[in-house]
């Protein structure tokens, strides 16, 4: 290995030396290095093991198309696998390790797979592990079950961190007139043109620096780059470096991921790691460049075999000369300039051109640097076990290649041409077309008119910097002409379709055309077994795999991809797709054009999963909803629980109490004396306007027309299909004003439903509905002493006397502390009870006032669990029962539905299905042996036929302090009367043995409601 850092040159800052660790070893590099550059300069050739065969791999590229140098970065919660060493910026203290190898990448026992490779060809898993289950182990699918863990461990690409992500991520929204993807010569020029014309331009570049290919060119080009970058900045372009446009979507939406801290040794404490941008652009210019394409030949994956473009980048950008004795193999003009530059830097360079004739000027250029040039010669096989040491050569004959000697080298560089990056356009559904003259896929010359997109630069198969800049100029002008304003994402109909590449130079700007060359092999079958020739090194897909796929019938490109995994994963088709397609075309006797290409899909390069989650993690996964008494409840000993997004008190344990003890005490206290409960989470809707009564009457199934002002009524809403939507109450506050309450669960959907009805069905009704759920803080005050407590807390005790505030009465009452309260005598618990609401900011003050009086009577605070107990004892339904499958008759409330009016659901509730006598109806449940307990979710079955879905189900259970045993609510076919003399069990096979239950009326306590009316 003879790669070395040159004494001068490169874009690195030699005054800022950095240290990092590679596989535990301390190494040094410079600010401005990529990890791959620093490793190469350090003499590290083998830095990875391949996915399937565990072959030694080194750096193959210098950018996003890196197929060899995937490493694991960081440790602990910040361990990140499959990091591209070629794009990872070096920072002080960076820790990197080789992956998919044991004990390490240099001596990996898994390399035995390479010897077994003839059994591991494409389709290995399907052939070996797919089979009928009836075959005894260890065959077929059964074998997969046994060996899956081992195989998954052996084949892989590093291990993910096992701890929660230590970093934060942002998600952001951006808007611009023109988005330019790619900050190379074309992109910079396009951005400059659009911004100079006054457009709001975003320029997105995945690299840390602007310049694209300029960054890989000799220092002489730097002046031009700097001048253009300065002009772009001065024009006010918003420049986003370290940002990848990974996806392009409908309506000018681009997905960007901005890497904010991946290059930093010590990120600022509150700095998110990455920001996921949803950018909405009026017009998009794709100046995404082109990727260097390799050629398939034997052992073309050996470390120190890489693209010429990469070697040029390492030379000019990082000041690293990768070899002393370099062989360059090419089929096109682009290798000549780098060949001269590498020779000029001090290497012995041999240039192999597969073509027969070469442009005289190019020949002269390399001859001047003493590059030895051989035409009609190509590499047949790379020699060397762990790193390339020489190349078996092949010479072109009339039909194919013939082996032709060997030449030693320490670096083999390959250029099989260039592949324009058309990924983003392909994501928009535009199929790239094959350009035979330039041997690459390019965008169609005319893009569909509805796409506000154009292409520029090397992405359109222009290979010279000046041509790229000119095409950027044209693209910028197109963007201006076609709108390029965020509010006119759709181009004007009359606008001409975006074209590009018109008047493009011949051969993409090369003197001589490229020779289509995808694979070099001699017709010797033995060659293939020992000289694996890789198409997609990242997934260990070889030329033999492509041919095998063809022989086995997977000739469609989509099948080829899935059968061989060609171009999957982080590679995304960047390296091997064209070679794979060419080989398939050859195998089926067709052309690449006819074979076509697969559709590229986002993301273009990998993005952290955390970026997709953004800040929706941990306690912010969903916003928490707190009642105005939240802190008050906590201060008074509440244990909280979630009810939808709401945090509600679950129970208020006293010393030594657990949940069960607490809720039983709370329920007992409410029935015996008095309790106070936060009920703010109930939905509350203001219904106002001259037609408010009409709306109420139409949406509730029971009659509301004659509800007097100052009275409340329980109501049930049905859906159009006749099933129950929600239940709640409506309080008539005035002739034209109601206050509606809903269940906590359905508050939002009922509100949306009322809005929908008013906006779409009954726009003629003069009614406004407004959610006031947040305006009011509310409590339920329940128990025999409730009235006494309330009387003590109001300014005028007479206002709450029975005659002034009877059952279902509503009144605005001033509390003793001066607060205006809205009070209704309503009961969910079955006790005498009031719901009392005050403006939310005063809710705590109300609680203080009431609690003082409640506590003085040895009352209690009660939570959701006791609330559940009290309502189950009374047979009152909630969302647990009203689950969207239940009719009003099923819930035992059919007599509430008015036969004298039409209401939402009134027609369909009469449909035969909902009228069947044997439908499951609401019932109460008691264990036959009173000491036994049963569970919600159990299935109700005949005791002698415990099977299938049974006869019904249990929706809610509780221990009833009033009855002294467990009780429940549920539904059973035909209702309680049908099961009077039949033994029924609550079958719960997963949790308990079947428990025999009695099926009774759901009104388990105080069925006549005497306590409530008292």
């Amino acid at each position, binding site marked *: 290995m003879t790669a070395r850092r040159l004494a001068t040159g490169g874009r690195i800052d030699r005054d800022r030396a950095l240290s990092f660790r590679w596989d535990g070893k301390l190494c040094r590099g410079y600010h401005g290095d990529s990890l791959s550059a620093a490793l190469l300069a350090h003499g590290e050739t083998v830095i990875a093991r391949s996915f399937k065969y565990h072959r030694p791999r080194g750096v193959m590229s210098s950018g996003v198309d890196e197929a060899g140098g995937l490493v694991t970065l960081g440790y602990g919660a910040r361990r990140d696998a499959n990091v591209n060493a070629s794009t990872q910026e070096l920072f002080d203290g960076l820790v990197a390790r080789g992956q998919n190898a044991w004990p390490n990448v240099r001596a990996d026992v898994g390399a035995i797979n390479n010897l077994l490779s003839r059994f591991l060809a494409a389709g290995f898993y399907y052939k070996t592990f797919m089979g009928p289950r009836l075959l005894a182990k260890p065959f077929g699918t059964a074998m997969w079950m046994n060996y899956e863990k081992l195989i998954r461990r052996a084949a892989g690409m590093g291990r993910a961190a096992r701890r929660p992500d230590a970093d*934060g991520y*942002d*998600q*952001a*929204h951006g*808007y611009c007139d023109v988005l330019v993807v790619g900050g190379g010569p074309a992109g910079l020029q396009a951005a400059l043109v659009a911004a100079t014309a006054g457009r709001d331009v975003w320029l997105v570049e995945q690299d840390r620096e602007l310049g694209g290919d300029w960054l890989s060119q000799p220092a002489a080009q730097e002046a031009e780059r700097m001048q253009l970058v300065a002009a772009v900045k001065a024009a006010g372009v918003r420049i986003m470096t370290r940002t990848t446009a990974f996806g392009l979507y409908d309506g000018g939406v681009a997905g960007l991921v901005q890497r904010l801290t991946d290059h930093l040794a010590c990120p*600022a*404490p*509150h*700095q*998110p790691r990455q*920001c996921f941008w949803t950018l909405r652009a009026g017009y998009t210019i794709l100046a995404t460049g082109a990727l260097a394409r390799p050629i398939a030949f034997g052992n073309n994956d050996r470390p120190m075999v890489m693209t010429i473009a990469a070697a040029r980048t390492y030379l000019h950008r990082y000041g690293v000369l990768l070899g002393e004795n370099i062989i360059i193999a090419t089929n096109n003009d682009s290798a000549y300039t780098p060949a001269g530059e590498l020779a000029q830097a001090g290497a012995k360079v041999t240039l192999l051109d597969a073509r027969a004739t070469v442009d005289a000027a190019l020949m002269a250029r390399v001859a001047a640097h003493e590059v030895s040039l051989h035409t009609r010669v190509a590499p047949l096989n790379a020699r060397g076990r762990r790193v390339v040491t020489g190349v078996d050569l092949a010479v072109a004959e009339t039909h194919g290649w013939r082996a032709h000697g060997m030449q030693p080298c320490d670096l083999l560089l390959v250029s099989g041409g260039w592949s324009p990056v058309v990924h983003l356009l392909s994501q928009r559904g535009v199929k790239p077309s094959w350009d035979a003259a330039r041997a690459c896929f390019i965008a169609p010359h005319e893009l569909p008119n509805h796409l506000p997109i154009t292409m520029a630069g090397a992405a359109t198969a222009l290979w010279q910097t000046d041509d790229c800049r000119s095409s950027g100029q044209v693209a910028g002008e197109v963007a201006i002409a076609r709108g390029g304003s*965020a*509010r006119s994402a759709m181009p004007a109909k009359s606008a001409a379709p975006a074209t590009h590449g018109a008047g493009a130079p011949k051969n993409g700007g090369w003197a001589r055309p490229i020779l289509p060359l995808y694979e070099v092999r001699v017709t010797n079958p033995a060659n293939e077994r020992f000289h694996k020739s890789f198409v997609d090194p990242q997934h260990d897909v070889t030329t033999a795999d492509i041919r095998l796929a063809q022989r086995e019938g997977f000739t469609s490109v989509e099948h080829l991809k899935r059968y061989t995994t060609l171009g999957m994963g982080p590679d995304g088709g960047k390296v091997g797709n064209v070679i794979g397609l060419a080989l398939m075309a050859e195998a089926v006797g067709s052309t690449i054009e006819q074979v076509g290409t697969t559709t590229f899909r986002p993301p273009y390069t990998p993005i952290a999963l955390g970026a997709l989650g953004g*800040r*929706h993690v941990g*306690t*912010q996964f*969903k*916003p*928490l*909803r*707190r*009642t*105005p008494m*939240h*802190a008050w409840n906590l201060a008074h000993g509440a244990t909280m629980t979630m009810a939808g*997004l*709401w945090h509600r008190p679950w129970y208020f344990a006293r010393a030594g109490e657990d949940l069960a003890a607490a809720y039983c005490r709370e329920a007992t206290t409410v029935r015996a004396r008095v309790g106070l409960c936060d009920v*703010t989470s109930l939905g509350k809707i*203001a219904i*106002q*306007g*001259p037609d408010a009564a009409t709306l109420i009457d139409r949406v509730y199934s029971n009659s509301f027309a004659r509800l007097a002002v100052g009275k409340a009524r329980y109501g049930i809403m049905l859906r159009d299909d006749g099933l129950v939507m929600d239940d709640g109450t409506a309080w008539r506050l005035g*002739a*034209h*004003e109601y206050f509606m309450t809903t269940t906590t669960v359905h508050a939002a959907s009922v509100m949306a439903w009322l809005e929908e009805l008013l906006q779409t069905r009954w726009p003629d009704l*003069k009614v*406004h509905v*407004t*959610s*006031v*759920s*947040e*305006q009011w*803080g509310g409590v339920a005050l329940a128990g025999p002493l409730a009235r006494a407590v309330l009387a003590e807390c109001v*300014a005028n005790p007479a206002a709450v006397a029975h005659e002034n505030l009877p059952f279902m009465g509503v009144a605005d009452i*001033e509390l*003793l*502390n*001066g*607060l*205006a309260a809205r009070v209704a005598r309503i009961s969910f618990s079955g006790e005498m009870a009031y719901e009392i609401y005050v*403006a*939310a*900011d*005063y*809710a*705590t*003050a109300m609680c203080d006032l009431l609690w003082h009086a409640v506590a003085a009577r040895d009352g209690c605070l009660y939570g959701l669990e006791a609330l559940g107990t009290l309502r189950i004892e009374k047979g009152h339904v909630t969302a647990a029962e009203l689950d969207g499958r239940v009719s009003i008759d099923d819930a035992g409330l059919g007599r509430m539905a008015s036969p004298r009016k039409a209401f939402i659901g009134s027609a369909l509730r009469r449909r035969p299905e909902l009228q069947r006598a044997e439908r499951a109806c609401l019932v109460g449940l008691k264990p036959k042996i009173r000491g036994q307990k049963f569970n919600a979710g159990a299935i109700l079955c005949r005791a002698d036929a415990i099977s299938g879905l049974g006869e019904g189900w249990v929706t809610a259970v509780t221990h009833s302090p009033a009855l002294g045993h467990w009780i429940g609510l549920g539904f059973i076919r035909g209702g309680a009367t049908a099961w009077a003399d039949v033994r029924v069990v609550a079958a719960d096979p997963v949790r308990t043995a079947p428990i025999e239950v009695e099926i009774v009326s759901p009104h388990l306590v105080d069925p006549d409601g005497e306590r409530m009316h008292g």
Partner: protein
Amino acid sequence: MAKSPPARLSALADYEVHHAGESGRLGGVAAGVTVQEVGALVLYQVAAWPESVATVGAQVAQHIGVAQAPGPRCVVEGNVAGERVALLRVEPLKWWVIGGDGSARLPTLSPAQGTTLDLSHARTHIRIAGPNARDLLNRLIPLDLRPPSFPTDRVATTMLHDLGITLWHSAPGFELFIPRGFARSIWENCIECGQQFGLEIG
């Protein structure tokens, strides 16, 4: 004997957020964003019917001393007895009257004209200002906040963390009206996200 009502306690009152301070990217650098709760919100909704929207608008405008009520998505600010009052057109048939001393300043509407409703406790008013206010908001809100699209005195109903909120671009900054129960959660979100810009809690 009745006494005067106790003091209002906002959704953020019991939380340490009110301890004003600075965090994030600071150290001599001015804060990129300031986040503050604007307390004691007075907010009334005035809603009209399609045929009365013009007359109700005129009445409300007259009450706050401006020439005419704002059109859709717009805001005008007036002055009632020395207090600034803002009129936000939040829906085609609805305005929000913010500020002043409440209902006494509202026009009396007959049912045929429209309705009024007190929402003063239904929202928590948070103001986000500073040079990076827009950057912070665009990490929370999917709205084009560039000046041509969302200039001063524009109002929008938008989404913040999957939650419907009202956003008004005022002279001092951006005024967010958050449903009260979510206010603390949203506040925490703003603080957490805002620290990267250097944050001052007002």
